[in-house]
């Protein structure tokens, strides 16, 4: 099967790569660019571990075709190093024990950042509703919910 050429902007850098037509974005990010912070879990859109930003909006990279992303701007967990909201979330996740094995954490953080920016008035029930698409098998979610709520509260008070 001949490969297709992709032009992506990944974490701010223009990248030219080749992918098999059948490939999903997650596989290309991991194999071609070694951006292994994007985790592949269920591969059918349920677990949320592969969540990245595509053109500024969180999306499942396991069910977004690489070909369909040609021309798109992608931001993976590795691309949030200088992001203030993500820095606050990282600190809160660490403080609140919001991770154990870490497998869900990259997707959890991308979703959490979306909650903080899109829903500044979210209460605990809404945070839990919005986190329903990211499965964690270690923490029982309490620490994750506390971490997101603490960042929301800090931003309201500042």
């Amino acid at each position, binding site marked *: 099967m001949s490969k297709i050429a992709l032009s992506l902007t990944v974490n701010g850098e223009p990248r030219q790569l080749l992918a*098999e037509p059948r490939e999903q974005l997650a596989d290309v990010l991991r194999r071609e660019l070694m951006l292994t912070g994007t985790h592949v879990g269920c591969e059918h859109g349920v677990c949320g571990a592969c969540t990245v930003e*595509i053109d500024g909006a*969180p999306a*499942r990279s*396991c069910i977004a075709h690489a070909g*369909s992303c040609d021309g798109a701007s992608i931001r993976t967990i590795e691309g949030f190093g200088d992001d203030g909201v993500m820095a606050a979330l990282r600190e809160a996740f660490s403080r609140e024990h919001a991770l154990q094995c870490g497998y869900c954490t990259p997707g959890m953080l991308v979703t959490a950042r979306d909650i903080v920016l899109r829903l500044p008035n979210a209460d605990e029930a809404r945070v839990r509703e919005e986190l329903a698409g990211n499965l964690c098998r270690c923490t029982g979610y309490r620490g994750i919910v506390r971490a997101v709520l603490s960042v929301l509260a800090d931003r309201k008070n500042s």
Partner: protein
Amino acid sequence: MKPASFIYARPTDWSDALKLLAEGARPGAGTQSLGPLLNLRLAQPDTIADLRHLPGYAGVAVDGGMVRIGAGTTHAAIEDGAVPGRVGEIMAAVARGIAYRPVRNRGTIGGSLAHADPAADWVAVLPALGATAVALGPKGERRIAAAEFVKGIFETALAADELLRFIEVPVQPAEARWGHWKFCRKVGEFSKATACVLALPGKPPRAVLAALDGPPMVIADASALMKDPAAEAARIVQGFPELAPWRRAIAETALRRAVAMAAA
């Protein structure tokens, strides 16, 4: 798992897309349902025609009493208020309950309807809203009532050489009463039973029961259901003896709760 090999095609205009369909390509939109089926190898098409990038595929326009929604409009756009007015309020609340936000950011209203999963939200809601599906084929546009669109599990009224281009939804008056109830044990999972009721002043109320093992049941005049929800809901679900008793029970409850919401 990874998909079986296929050819990826990105048509640049609508005639190009129709040509690909005529050659047997499977259309893809947000691929939030097709993607999992490909990964699980339940779907193994030779070619996928990616409609996402076609001009005018997404977007909303109001023309007189009708809202014309591009089939490629995402659930997230509808959740965020892309559809104006009372019907937009109704649709935004429905959209918020579809799967998860990262899925809603790519999944589309047309893709979901054309996929025709019996448990999908728009499959239930669009017939209740009196919507029309606008298909595009080699001979031009063809209009199909949403109530007639889904024919069975993953089966629609679209011909093999047609694609879904628009959804048209009538503008609703501010007094329109709406009830929508679905059973999910977890936020975002597929519904186990869905019911919706639309009650408009001066018109018979309309109801839909969905997430059945086939097309949604559309009740064009749900006056009896509104009048005596308990007895009528019990009678309606007896028409589905093939469903397990627990599914009949939650379908009955979904109907009663949708009526209660619309009557509140």
